[in-house]
């Protein structure tokens, strides 16, 4: 299925703060709306060293909730280029809080 890659490093090398995450949500939502039905939005973390849960929950977590509640039809969200264990653990926590899957896409 066609996918769109969204580079998270446009928001910085370290992504922290709920308020900053709130500001990123509209951009992710707009990117999600450009994905074909049945397609995937892939968030690339190349160049991103860390994300904290507050930031991630307010943008990625909110998209996951939107998906879980059917607001993006059959579209999906995935991540790739996750470069360290802490970043992977934080992304897993964000998915856990949102109660939705956040799979790893091939690079």
């Amino acid at each position: 299925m066609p996918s769109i890659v969204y580079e998270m490093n446009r928001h910085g090398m370290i992504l922290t703060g709920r308020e900053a995450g709130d500001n990123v949500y509209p951009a992710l939502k707009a990117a999600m709306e450009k994905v074909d039905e049945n397609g995937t939005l892939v968030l690339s973390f190349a160049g991103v060293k860390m994300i904290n849960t507050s930031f991630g929950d307010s943008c990625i977590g909110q998209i996951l909730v939107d998906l879980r509640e059917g607001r993006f039809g059959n579209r999906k969200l995935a991540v790739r280029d996750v470069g360290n264990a802490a970043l992977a653990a934080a992304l897993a926590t964000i998915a856990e809080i949102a109660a939705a899957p956040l799979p790893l896409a091939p690079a």
Partner: protein
Amino acid sequence: MAPKSFVLGTTFPDNLEKIFTHVQAGDEVVLDLSNTTFLSPYAVCGIYLLVSQWKNDGAKITVTPPVSMDCRNYLDRVHFFGMLQEKKLALINPPIRRVSETNQADVLFELTWIGEPKSVQKILTDRLWPIFITKGFNDDLTGFVVWVIGELCDNAFVHARVPGKDPFGAFICVQSYSNPRPNIQLAVGDLGKGIRASLAESKNFSGLKDDREAMLTAMRPGVSSWTHREGQRRGNGLTDVLKIALGSSSERDIRSVSGRIWLRGGRLGRAADEGTLDGTLVGLRLFADKVDKASREEIEHALDRV
């Protein structure tokens, strides 16, 4: 009237929690560090916040530096004395001779005040991350440290603004040690309203009996002053910090106003009644060879055993 004297112990220091107190407006107060030979980041943050608290109380404060030159110079290099002087918080008596600012070999990340939320990302990106990598720490450990500091700073900015309590924001201090094996100790503190008062803004948590119960409640997933608002998934910051502390077999102290919760050997416990420090102060030790995150079930189990 004779000044009120508060004498800190030698290492850690052992009586740190007991000297956290309020004083009266107009009091002359002496914080005597002359016997002190070692201060952890938690202690450095704690005594800086204590002096700030006394200043807010309206006291005139004198700090007596450590006799130990090692400890005195270390406190200078972590910018403790510099911050006291810049903010005009206290007289340092006897005055200290400033050490070379280029000699920072034993300082990892000095006492730093972050006064606005957007500065957190900049400080973590431009200063903390490069320092850690330069000192040889890998991305995994540095990432967990950044995660913890980011969450605790977030909490500080949400809960720290209280009229008449300066300064607003978060204080950070981080240090590395080699005994008993390589580890990082970090502290994040603020002079805000504390966890109990923050949670009490939600009708769900208005009846918490003391600060310790409030902290234990706040460590559970999804508990925050926002919990009653539909659609909010807040209240995971302290939970994340506990997950990392438990998953890393680390040690942790978290104090909020007049209570403290400790973590040692995978067990959480309530500290006995101690002093009062406005706001919240968290100290965490992470061992460099084992940093991980505990599961939600593991932290629920640990909290149920307290």
